[in-house]
């Protein structure tokens, strides 16, 4: 289990334990973390699992994938550090990861 912190736009932190191998999106959806809608459940067609990755984690999580790049157009307030949480697979070394959410999905 790794600890992931999801911080909503209003600043509330939700700390959940996620099993490595799952996705950052599933960690939120399975634990009913508000603010990540993930309407398509990780098919990368909805763009409603948009999160911001803090600078110190960006390199470790890698770049957006090609389909992610296309789908993220769906999201609002896309920034350089935006990712779709369903496209990030949780690994052991992600313990302590903190992600932030946009105002709306």
């Amino acid at each position: 289990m790794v600890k992931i912190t999801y911080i909503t736009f209003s600043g509330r932190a939700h700390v959940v334990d996620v099993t490595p191998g799952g996705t950052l999106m599933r960690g939120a959806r399975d634990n009913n973390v508000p603010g990540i809608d993930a309407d398509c459940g990780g098919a990368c067609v909805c763009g409603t699992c948009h999160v911001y990755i803090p600078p110190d984690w960006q390199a470790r999580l890698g770049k957006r994938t090609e389909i992610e790049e296309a789908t993220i157009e769906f999201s609002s307030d896309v920034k350089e550090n935006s990712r779709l949480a369903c496209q990030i697979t949780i690994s052991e070394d992600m313990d302590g990861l903190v992600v932030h959410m946009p105002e709306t999905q």
Partner: protein
Amino acid sequence: MNAVTSPGVHWDPYDPKYFANPYPAFNRLREEAPLYYNAQYDFYAVSRYEDVERGLFDRDTFISGRGGILEIIKQNVPIPKGVFIFEDPPLHTMHRSLLTRVFTPKKMNALEPQIRAFCAKALDPLVEGGRFNFIDDLGAEMPLRVIGMLLGIPEEDLKSVQHQANEKLRTDPGKPKDFTDHQFVGEGFEEYLDWRVKHPSDDLMTELLNAEFTDETGTTRKLTRDEVLLFISILAGAGNETTNRLIGWTGKVLAEHPDQRRQIYENRALIPQAIEELLRFEPPGPSVGRYVAKDTEFHGQKVPEGSAILFLVGGANRDPRKFTSPDKFDIHRPRVPHLTFGYGFHSCLGNALARIEGRVALDELLNRFPEWDVDLENAHLSSTSTVRGWETLPAYTPKAGKAKPVAAAPVAEEAPSGERWKMVLKTPMGPQEMVMTMNRDGNSFTGRIDSPMGGEDISEGKIDGDKLSWVMNVTKPAKIKLSFEVTQEGDTLTGHAKLGMFGKSALTGERI
């Protein structure tokens, strides 16, 4: 052949008995037969949240390529390339991605002022009247105008296009629809398309005509005319009826929960969560179908390759494993995602649009009608292969009292000589009133029909004892031939009109 039996539990998607309130049956299926098999129509159904989620996400086992509607799957209806709603990868991915850019939440939210204007136009004339109809006045109007605006189809011609889309999915109560001659391309779009080719605009039709993509052969090209027509037909079909039903459920459910309606009235910030709860509580599309492409299991029981399966969204949305007190309508419940827009690769492309439409409609309704009651005696639940909801839902505002709605006199020019009949054709958009003026001449007759949508001469008028038949050709925008067959009994008429290839609608009439 089939090992799954579900003693004592029963659900039949075509039986109006379940149609009116499927939830007790869904609740039993979910608890007693989490994998349900219906022998009469030979299909499986799962209704637990977890199972619906799993199934809709697993597009290798549960494919869309044989259709997403039970009848289409069972009747093995051929699906033309481009009907991406019923496609699998790689075609689905390619076709869907062409449309995704157009349907971003950002773009949809930007439509809000226009959506408000459509609502205002529909509702303003009704404010003084003391009554209105959630479907006829709003649900059948606004979503259609929005999609028309997106596609670039002129307002005045939208009605008949909607009519076609609805007719195609309509079922007769009690039995599956025959899809064997189903046409996926809507008639009536061709002329707009050809016109748009010459007169590009900033609408979706133009965007689709110009979009470049890489097809399955690796060629970069534009969509063909037929492909664009298909896409447009799909969007017109997917984006109307569903949102129309959401508006109907908004009217019905909030009328039954006046306290929560008052809270929303007083605090409009509650609207988004109210719409989510409405979507959960009464999903306009209660089930999604798939073809089983390889043997699989649910709850240790086998579902063989070649089966049809329904994912009961309406069951999943009320699964107590996921929602506390699921049968309770509660706009304040913590946000747990419902499955009303499907799930996975085919999840609703138009969900952002549907949501904004639902929210604006509720806001604009409350601006004009803080309270209303629904007249369920005169309401009617519709039955199609894909949606469940109100076909007509009259409502009245309390101050006006429960005045019985009086049928508005159709706007007809003062009729010349001859018999006059006021007729009502039960169409999927709700009853359509018309007045026929006829002049008998032996075994034949001539005349015309006037309705709020215009007037047309009739032809082939025949009289055979108490049987009358005639034809009326509607030309705009689709060429539809309406063939009427009615029986006269004194001062009343009963019968039906056959609407081109779209099936029959019941007709009643009385002498005026």
